[in-house]
């Protein structure tokens, strides 16, 4: 029996532009389970990224509550949310967003040392993670501009994992990568999920979606589909692919 790690109650998000109100998320009640690789899908403008960043404490909901391991984070102020994020969340962005003026290793340490003062332990963990995602030592001292897209995104994943977050939030992690780089990044994400890491990913990409075990489909701010895809196995991917396609067809994808 899996534990609920994240739960929303009547989550709403409304944007106001030039006096016009746009309700992006509408009364969402979602529960995310520990150890799941949850995929959020939906057409453009459906509110996927808005939901992801509301769930992660990056943005505040307009109404409703978000409970992370029982703690209501929707009432936290900006600084409390920052502390919440550093202790509980890891982020992987479509645009990667590594710090340009820092080396690969320093990018990981800049997050890691926020939580732990033990430089040696954090550095050792960062190096282990870097090696684990396939970034060899020669790349650790390089700057983001000197890396390929795939290498940079894997460095981004290391940064997301450095504080052993309870949940990794990924927004189109392969959106800016070519096919080969995408596969390497997805392999890393699948691997860390297998090791028990909870992940929530927003994507348009079927290949990425196939890595998840649960698919949530969002349309006009409402979850209109929830598919249990089962754990990813490279060998049984065809059946999962068909199941996903059927689900997406049903959702009007």
């Amino acid at each position, binding site marked *: 029996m899996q534990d609920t790690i994240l739960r929303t109650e009547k989550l709403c998000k409304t944007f106001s532009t030039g006096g016009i109100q746009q309700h992006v998320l509408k009364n969402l009640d979602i529960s995310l389970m520990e150890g799941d690789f949850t995929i959020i899908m939906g057409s453009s403008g459906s509110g996927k990224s808005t939901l992801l*960043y509301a769930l992660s404490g*990056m943005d505040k909901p307009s109404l409703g509550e978000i409970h992370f391991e029982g703690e209501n984070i929707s009432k936290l102020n900006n600084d409390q949310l920052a502390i919440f994020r550093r202790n509980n969340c890891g982020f992987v*962005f479509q645009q990667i*967003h590594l*710090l340009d003026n820092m080396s690969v290793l320093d990018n990981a340490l*800049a997050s890691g040392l926020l939580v732990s003062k033990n430089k040696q332990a954090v550095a050792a963990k*960062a190096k282990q993670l870097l090696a684990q995602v396939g970034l060899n030592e020669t790349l650790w001292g390089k700057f983001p*501009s000197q890396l390929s897209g795939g290498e940079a995104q894997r460095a981004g994943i290391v940064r997301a994992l450095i504080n052993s977050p309870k949940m990794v939030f990924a927004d189109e992690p392969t959106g800016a990568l070519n096919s080969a780089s995408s596969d390497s990044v997805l392999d890393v994400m699948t691997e860390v999920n297998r090791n028990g890491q909870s992940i929530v990913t927003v994507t348009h990409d079927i290949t990425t979606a196939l890595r998840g075990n649960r698919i949530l489909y969002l349309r006009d701010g409402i979850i209109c589909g929830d598919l249990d895809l089962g754990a990813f196995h490279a060998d049984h991917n065809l059946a999962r692919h068909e199941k996903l396609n059927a689900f997406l067809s049903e959702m009007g994808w």
Partner: protein
Amino acid sequence: MRSCLKWDGKMRIINLAIANIKTGKSAVFSLFVLIFIAALLLNIGTTVMSKMSTFYEDKVEELHDAHVSIVMKSANYKQPYGDFLKSYSGVKETETEQMILLPTATIRFDKSDFSIRTALLNADAERTVAPLKLIEESASDKGEGIYIPYGLKVRNGYQLGDNFTLTYQNKKYSYRVTGFFESTLMGTSKLAMLKFYLPDAAYRQLSEELGPAADGTLISAIFTDSEQSGALLSDYNNQFPQSNEAVDPSFWGADMQTAESSSALIVNIVAMILVAFAAMIVLMSLTVIKFRISYSIDDGMVNIGVLKAVGYTSLQIHTSIVLQFMLIAVAASVTGAAVSYAVMPAFGGVISSLAGLLWTGDAHMGTDLASVLIVTLLVLVVALLSSMRIHKLSPVAALRGGIMTHNFRRNLLPLDKAKGGLQFVLACKTMLANSRQNLMIGSIIVAITFASVFSVVLYYNIAEDKTAFFQMLGAETPNVGIQVEPGKDSEQLLMQIQQMTGVEKANILDYITTTIDGQLVNTDFSDDYGKLENKSVYEGRYPQYDNEIVVTGGLARLLGKNIGDTIKVGVGGASHPFLITGLNQSFNAGRNGASLTMAGVHHLIPDHKGMSINVYLEGVNKSDFIRDVEAEYGSMIQTITDVDESLESGTRVYISAVFAVMVVILAITVLVVVLILYLVIKMTILKRKRELGILKATGYTTFQLMTQIALSFVPIVIAGVIVGGVLGSLYTNSVLELLLSDAGISNVQFIIHVPLIVTLCIAIVVLVYLVSMLVSRRIKRITAYGLITE
């Protein structure tokens, strides 16, 4: 058609420039304020300096005042004296006038009594030279009371209707102040003579009461060219050896150049400090402009690419950037020049109180134009040079974000190895990544710290601990000064005073006017220089024997002499060679000063006695002592002065001038620090918006990021403050020596009060930190979510 296209092109450039200005309003405002302050100070400084160069000459002309005046008892006056002036080369007009001459009358100066040589003239008498011209007159008491110099109003606070009392030979003569007039030579106590006018009836009454002993003669001369007036008194002295102060104590002579140098000096110093400070701010503004242009090119690289792609030429884009800064510079400098008219009266008040003459705030179009031109031209040059690289950018390179502005070849301070907390190390990384920007901030901090230290040292030494100030001026600081009644035995009185209870020491310190190589030299003499509190000799030693002399450094340079050389000193017909044993300085004597022993003076004026006794007290109440001296030796004493009080009131005008300078410099320092940090941090935050968003997303709080930014300035600011503080401590005296060299001051040993400077430096660092924290609060507006949505 063609001209229409050209005009259209120009309009597009202007529109681009205006659009750029509109997008960065707060940065534009900060730059505007910086350039405005620079233009304001520059305009005030240059206006004061240019006006001061002709101020006295213009004043003499306006008042039809004398370039040279000589006063003596009528009994000592001889016709050849007047004839000499009349026939002197360059003299175009002379006049001889009868007056009442009081060798030492006591008048109230602020809270103390001040003894001074006084001339009382008949207000209703006909005269062509220096006709009575009142600048303020009582409407009700017209034609009555006394007319007093304007200097007594601005320096000592006398107002129309006030009671004015002259004490002469223990008798008080009281009048009501009914008007103020200006006088270049006899309007302040600086030249040891004050002139007053009494209406005919009062004049005659006083003249009758005082008798013929108080009859004096005033000889005045106006020159065609004021430059020629400088040698008249010296030539007069040579021509009439019996008519000088040493032989005739009632004799007094002064010329315009002496008056000018005694008053204009401090005004010029203040003006020079303002100009120097303005130059510093102009430099800062230019540095900020350069920084801002580089930033806006980096930031707007893609826009530049788009503009180039759609057909704008490099020149058009370049011109729009330059134009943007030119518009700011012209607007700010014109406003600065205009506002200087509003600020000038305040400076005019200080100048009036120093010179005792009315400073009029006339239009100064020439200097206005020069200030505006200087500032805008400098901005133009810097803007042109800083944006030159636009020409080298191809549209494609610009659209791709241009050339990388940062070089990341070395990862400085790797986080796993660097010592110190995360915040500090990240701050240091930021600092190292922005070395050029930090160099700019460091240089600015060095400059403003230097200026602040300079002003604080100046203020401390003039307002708090005046020891070094008096030493610099060569002014002796006894507690009580006694002027012995002419004809009485001063040496006997000295001996008796030395025996009195509470007298620590007493000596004679008086002066005579001598001539050395054709120069009139203010020569003091003492029975014992060892008793002086302020040793003004900065090289060599005081004279000990009758054939020794000390001269001012300025005079030594003028004569081409040095310690060990012999010079011939003359008084009237007598002269004697003296060996130079030391160099000193004296603000009062100016460039031409010397010191002799009492025995040395006797070579020139046999049996001459010093009539001024300086008394230094210890463990006795000063008022009691003065009362006892008056009671016991009153018949031998002409006046007793509370020197402490006189010095206090005498230096008040300097204190207020220096205080004003200090306040201006410190206020501008604070403003400049705030503005520059505002500009730099704002640009830094904009530039690092994405990075700050990432850091926020990964869990950094706003306060942590604010601290990081504030801390990133701290090392360079501390370094700048240390360098500026050390330079200020080491070179303030040298700068002062340079500023005061024209006044004959060669050696300044102002006390560098280290705790005060350390406090100032700490205050600057704290100010920078607090301002940085405050300005970087705008990080709060950057959200992690904005990273994705923007």
